[in-house]
């Protein structure tokens, strides 16, 4: 089995990442990343800021926010496209809420046992664990339903809230940031995590694109073709957990799932192929994150919310443009020739004939 190997490698990378951040080892990769972030990317953004006279691009925390948001705009739809078309959209939301329990577990253990675990690491572990359990439920017990996801989701969140109240009041302060997300607190570590995840997830999806697609479109036939369906279904849910947890701090637990779902649904209206649907979903997500972050800065509103609202607006516009018969809108507008604006019987007949 390849899968345990992947998981172990993944966890090792994560643990390595978190521990290196935490012990402030000035290891090579982290140094390199800092240099890239501040000296290369930061300087570039500063130049942009001066050239276009846009002040916010010059602030390091906004630079970090934009970079983090761009990463989310890539990994969300990249994984979300498979998830949505497997009709598992709710899984993203479920994992986000159990990841919140993971954060609480981390904070709780830190207080009780005087550890210094990163809450993100515990969130990652809990979310991946939940993802695999849910997949197991779907696969074996055939007990999968909306109901079972709803139960896991609420139970996870309940566990989180209980653990939070059992821990000293001090941590409740930071909880809002996890629930609703926060732009101003995007740290170098957050951005680093998202960049690493961006590379890792893009790499994995590229390598496993064919089996993931086959399993998404026609799992039964994929199994008959002797493709390891179980492995790729698990990969899909683990990737979802990774996306959700790494995007959680910016988007917030409650809204993060939107980035895996809304742009994908938008792209589904217009995409002519599966590859195109992934690309269009990423474009839609990038539009949402860039406009969302900008609006959040300009109006001082919650970033997660403004990103999701941007995504939803794009969804509604696309829906109307593609689904609704909007010819009547044009008919109501005065035409330049002014000849056939009136709804003559003949005009209606011609139209009716067209539609049939």
């Amino acid at each position, binding site marked *: 089995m390849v899968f345990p190997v992947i998981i172990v490698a993944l966890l090792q990378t994560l643990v390595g990442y978190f521990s290196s951040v935490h012990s402030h080892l000035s290891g090579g990769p982290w140094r390199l990343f800092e240099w890239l972030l501040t000296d290369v990317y930061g300087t570039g953004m500063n130049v942009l800021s001066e050239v276009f006279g846009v002040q916010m691009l010059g602030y390091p925390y906004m630079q970090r926010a934009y970079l983090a948001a761009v990463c989310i705009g890539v990994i969300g739809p990249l994984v979300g496209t498979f998830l949505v078309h497997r009709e598992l959209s709710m899984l993203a939301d479920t994992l986000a809420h159990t990841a919140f329990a993971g954060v609480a577990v981390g904070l709780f253990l830190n207080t009780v046992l005087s550890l210094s675990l990163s809450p993100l690491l515990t969130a990652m572990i809990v979310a991946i664990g939940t993802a695999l359990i849910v997949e197991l439920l779907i696969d074996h017990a055939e007990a999968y339903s909306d109901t079972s996801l709803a139960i896991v989701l609420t139970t996870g969140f309940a566990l989180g809230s209980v653990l939070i109240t059992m821990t000293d009041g001090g941590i409740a302060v930071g909880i809002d940031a996890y629930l609703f997300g926060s732009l101003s607190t995007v740290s170098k570590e957050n951005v680093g995590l998202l960049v690493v995840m961006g590379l890792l997830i893009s790499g994995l999806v590229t390598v496993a694109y064919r089996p993931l697609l086959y399993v998404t479109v026609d799992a039964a*036939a994929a199994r*008959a073709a002797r493709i390891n369906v179980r492995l790729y279904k698990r990969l899909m849910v683990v990737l979802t957990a990774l996306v959700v947890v790494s995007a959680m701090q910016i988007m917030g637990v409650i809204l993060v799932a939107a980035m895996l779902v809304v742009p994908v649904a938008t792209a589904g209206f217009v995409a002519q192929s599966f*590859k195109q649907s992934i690309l269009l979903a990423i474009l839609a997500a990038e539009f949402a994150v860039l406009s969302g972050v900008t609006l959040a800065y300009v109006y001082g509103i919650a970033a997660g919310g403004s990103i999701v609202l941007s995504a939803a607006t794009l969804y509604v516009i696309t829906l109307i443009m593609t689904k609704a018969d909007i010819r009547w809108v044009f008919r109501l507008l005065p035409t330049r020739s002014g000849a056939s604006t009136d709804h003559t019987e003949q005009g209606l007949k011609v139209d009716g004939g067209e539609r049939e």
Partner: protein
Amino acid sequence: MTTNTASTSFPEYSTEPVVSVNNVSFAYGDIPVIDSVSIDVQPGAFLGLVGPNGSGKSTLLHLMLGLQNPDTGTIRLFGEPAGEFDAGERIGYVPQNATTAAQRIPVTVRELVTMGRYPQRLVGRFTETDHQAIEDALQAVEITNLADRRVGQLSGGQRQRVFIARALAAGSDLLALDEPTVGVDAESRESFYELLADLNESGLTILLIEHDIGVVTTYASDIACLNRRLYFDGNPEDFVATDALAAAYGTDQHVLSHNH
């Protein structure tokens, strides 16, 4: 010409059965679904699997393809135990309702047919052989002109052809279909079964689950009538002559045998 892809992909005509089911029983929990069934599918056969709803047809097909393991008895697929058989490209499977899922997903005809090559090439670049197999498969079922359309935009009959093309692109030796023409209009159904008959003539072994017994007696070379037990296994002429249908269907037989 239409069956070029299929015929070139058959390695040899061995006398060994493609599928050999030997005294197999299977139950979901304590509900018996298949009871002591033995049946062989010879190379080049067109086997129609009929039986009432819930008679275990789909389960038997799953068992034959090695998707489930029997509780007792043995199943051999191309001479190997079905569960261990791993040359996925030799099996073309069109599951029940497969096309409804593909309808929602923004996937093109070409993307779906290309999946037929995935077992051989799960990663890495497609070769000229791969591309040729895909083009030949599209050609064989006459959907080349639809290649860049979304599967969801096709008619029911066209959509079924896409799934056949996927099996042809793989170079499958065995094509298994589970009620493929549900929701397909009568005219397209007929041309779909003509296509299957052509492919069968070129040497492709076909397993077909079908509720329309008239279709099975017209096109299949063999009929298996199942209702947990096997009530009949033989050619269509004998099937019509016996009362196996009445026995398997119980009192409903007059409804189901009218259109033969």
